[in-house]
């Protein structure tokens, strides 16, 4: 409790107000009946209705969802493999190149990644569409998955794996029944991260998408380029609500499982 002064309280309050007020204002104004963004014209949900009647938005949402599911699943498989190879694979030719390639897309400006992928797709004659977006997102997000998974792999006790091998497991069995259950939480968070990044991506998708495969961020970007749109406010509010719901549910489940484990441990100790 020491040193929690008025100064700290003020900076926390102002800081969190700065982080959350803009989104709060956006949410409130999504229920504004008027077209003008600053003038409150009564509570209304009409923009939500208009949003759901706009086929272009629904199509874009469907494209985004499919791309997200496909690319995050592929990225999780590839990223976990890559993390396993880097952390457990020992020495092999090109290990440095591989860890460099896994690190680079994270820090490289997305405009460069987008441009280079597009030029590749054109060079090999692959038509721009759903497939190219999935390929681009998989490449970009697998690097994040591999970071998340390898940080878990580094901390866990390798002797568990060795014990399984000593007891007659094949390497694959050892991975399946020992390693995978232990790293599973990291794999799941990696998947969630990849999925979120894919849903959110504008830059890569702008480069590699075709006319028939507009994603939601592209649609939002072109709608708000020239100014605020009440329909986008409604859409943003729904997206914020989904994220908030997801994060709060996840943290509640997490808390519950921690309490349960503590209780189990207490009971085990008591008996």
């Amino acid at each position, binding site marked *: 409790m020491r040193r929690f002064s008025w100064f700290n309280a003020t*900076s926390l309050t102002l800081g969190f107000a700065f*982080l959350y007020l803009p*989104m709060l204002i956006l949410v409130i104004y999504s229920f504004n009946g008027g077209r003008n963004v600053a003038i409150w014209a009564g509570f209304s949900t009409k923009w939500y209705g208009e949003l759901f009647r706009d086929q272009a938005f629904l199509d874009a949402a469907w494209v985004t969802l499919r791309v997200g599911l496909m690319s995050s699943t592929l990225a999780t498989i590839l990223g976990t*493999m890559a993390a396993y190879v880097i952390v457990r*694979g020992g020495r092999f030719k090109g290990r440095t190149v591989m860890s460099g*390639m896994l690190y680079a897309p994270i820090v490289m400006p997305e405009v460069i990644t987008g*441009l280079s992928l597009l030029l*590749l797709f054109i*060079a090999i004659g692959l038509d721009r569409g759903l497939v190219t977006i999935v390929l681009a997102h998989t490449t970009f997000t697998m690097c994040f998955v591999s970071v998340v998974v390898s940080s878990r792999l580094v901390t866990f006790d390798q002797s568990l794996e060795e014990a399984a091998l000593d007891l007659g497991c094949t390497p694959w069995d050892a991975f399946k029944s020992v390693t995978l259950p232990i790293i599973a939480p990291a794999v799941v968070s990696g998947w969630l991260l990849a999925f979120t990044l894919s849903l959110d991506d504008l830059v890569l998708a702008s480069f590699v998408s075709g006319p028939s495969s507009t994603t939601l961020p592209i649609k939002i*970007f072109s709608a708000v380029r020239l100014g605020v749109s009440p329909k986008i406010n409604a859409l943003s509010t729904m997206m914020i609500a989904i994220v908030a719901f997801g994060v709060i549910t996840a943290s509640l489940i997490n808390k519950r499982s921690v309490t349960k484990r503590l209780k189990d441990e207490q009971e085990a100790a008591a008996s």
Partner: protein
Amino acid sequence: MNYRRLMLIGVPYLWLLGLFLVPFIIVLKISLSDIALSIPPYAPTLDLSEGWAGLKDFFSKLDFDNFLFLKTDPLYWKAYVSSLQIAIFSTAITLLVGYPIAYGMARAPEEWRATLMMLVILPFWTSFLIRVYSWMGILGKEGFLNATLMWLGIVDEPLTILNTNTAVYIGIVYTYLPFMILPIYAALDKLDISLLEAAEDLGCTRTSAFWLVTLPLSRPGIVAGSFLVFIPVIGEFVIPSLLGGSNTLMIGKILFEEFSSNRDWPVASAVAVLLLLIVVVPIVLFQRSQERQAEAQK
């Protein structure tokens, strides 16, 4: 090396090779080509069917014209300078805003900290685009901020903030703030309070104890946070496009426009190569400082 191990290494390796390294080499190559009115709109293209002669022909036609062009057109170097300038200033502002928040979090009662952490991370999961967009409704001429200021009687005329560099700075500080707060918080959280007590026992005031003890010990967090903001901001595209004006020059935006509106692929590729060269320096410095940090902790 058995079959399974080969698969395990080979699949992600080939994926990254094909979809990261090869595309990058293509960018390098096109940046050295000339613009042409064809599909694809650049020449020469590498024609391996002609064998050695084709390869020789290809290399003889490569030149640095596009890079020289970037040098002669003031738009490009102005954009580079202004990207760096915006990145440096916005990193400094983010640090000034983020440090007190991280400090307050580290000094908050123990039972609050997990919740505060979650509140800092939560915006990460929310769409970046939406967070930038939310400021358009606030900063616009008829936006929330101007409406409030006029209602309070502070200003008579609406302020022009949207579509200026000020709006770009606000957008950057807002979206990248968590990147600054988290590493600084991590550094401050580890700080041993008894060091501060010792400093005060030895006659430091609270303020001088902060400057002499807390600030130097949180340096790793400050360094990491600053790089985490600086590096992505240089190539930023969404924020200058939505919040910036026509005179906001940022290289990410120029690259995108060069590519999509002007369809000048060779110049766009040259811009990309130079952007990468600019970004590589801070990335290498960041990695070095992280490694030194890891060494020091051992």
